[in-house]
């Protein structure tokens, strides 16, 4: 169990580093998918098979397909790679690196002071997850639903085009 965890963790780590350093957007997204799949393996072996399945269905299977879809529509040319390499200058790295370093120090400190009591591993099935989702966390779920609804309505409003009438022979002016 432990070996699988460490392998999945290393895969997730390497893939995430590759996401940040790739210049080609689609390649970066592919590494992000690998990273998500590795995290899903970690969820599965830590007793949350339902969350692992949802991670693959929702994140890897739906959201990132839409990301790839959007990048395909943008059809970035060869120039975008050059522009990306400008963004990877050391100046841009300093602040996030310092912030991450603080977090890493905290993490190491927590691990050193950890008293070694083993966390009990318990498999949590779909029923238990849904009972807490629609029981104790009802309000949060409903609020998230409303937020998503607002997003959908907004996207529809922005994407809606004025209805244009075309005649087969008399093409009306598009801007009128």
């Amino acid at each position: 169990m432990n070996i699988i965890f460490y392998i999945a963790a290393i895969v997730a780590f390497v893939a995430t580093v590759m996401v940040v350093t790739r210049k080609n957007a689609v390649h970066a997204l592919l590494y992000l998918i690998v990273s998500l799949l590795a995290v899903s393996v970690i969820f599965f072996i830590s007793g949350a098979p339902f969350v692992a399945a949802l991670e693959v269905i929702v994140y890897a299977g739906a959201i990132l397909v839409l990301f790839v879809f959007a990048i395909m529509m943008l059809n970035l040319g060869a120039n975008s790679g050059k522009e990306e390499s400008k963004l990877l200058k050391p100046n841009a790295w300093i602040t996030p690196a310092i912030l991450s370093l603080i977090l890493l120090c905290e993490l190491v400190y927590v691990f050193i002071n950890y008293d070694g009591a083993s966390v009990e591993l318990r498999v949590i099935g779909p029923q238990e997850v849904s009972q807490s989702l629609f029981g104790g966390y009802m309000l949060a779920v409903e609020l998230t639903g409303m937020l998503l609804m607002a997003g959908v309505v907004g996207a529809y409003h922005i994407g809606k085009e004025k209805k244009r009438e075309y005649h087969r022979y008399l093409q009306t002016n598009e801007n009128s």
Partner: protein
Amino acid sequence: MNEILVQILIIVGVLLGTVTIAAGLIYVERKMLAVWQQRSGPNRVGPFGIFQVLADMVKIFFKEDWIPPFVDKKVFIIAPTIIMLSILMSFSIVPFAPGIVIADLNIGLLFFLAMSSLGAYTIVLAGWASNNKYSLLGGMRGAAQMISYEVFMGLSLMGVVIQVGSFNMTDIVNAQKGLWFVVPQFVGFVIFLIAGVAETHRLPFDLPEAESELIAGFHSEYSGMKFGMFFVGEYLGITLVSCMITILFFGGWLGPSFLPPIVWFLIKMFAFILFFVLLRAALARPRYDQLMSFGWKLLLPLALLNVLITGAVVLSNA
């Protein structure tokens, strides 16, 4: 030791069995299409042309495997492997008979949905990596179609899950001992069937590869065995969806006891495979906007209504 050996035997058996069935479908499809269209079909290689599969395989293996210079090479090579991998992974949760299953996961159905949603990448990436406008159009159609139809596919299965109270495939089959779920879940069955055709992008929903408009769409740049992977992947997909329909709605291996359970399973599975072929012979391709509006405006409300009613009935009986 013995258990491990049995497990390995099951894995090898399922792998070889499914790939052989998928390859054999090349012949079955051509022959059955010919029967339904009153033609002879393949009849030159061997008796009734049954060695046609072999001839096709030899041909596809010996073709030049050409990678065009303008493609994104790494992604171009990865794309066809994804569909084979994701579909073969899905077969690991299919119970062919009591005990004959590779992994009896308690989230079996969700695993199937997860793997089928990963299958969408194969079209998207193949279309993008080919660096060709027709392939890109095919890839975009494929992505939109698969994401949309996954929604109804998942929702249509929830009726079954509510009735059984479990995502486990063996539990789902055992719950159908009295009555197959096709009767109480008829709406779910029809929606799953339609979504299954769209997920495997078979005719009449083969718009990502519509040869008359997009010259084979996402796989126009592929040749040799890489094209073969898409081809076999499609037939594997048909086999998988037929297996899932058999398990979820037609009682899996259950049947009168004069035949062994695995035979009942295979009979039901092949009946649905033939139905898929008949669909191809009988129906015309819809327009792309018709496909999308049919999905979102008709199937989605129906699937939601089905979940609502099933939930209410189960709750009132409890």
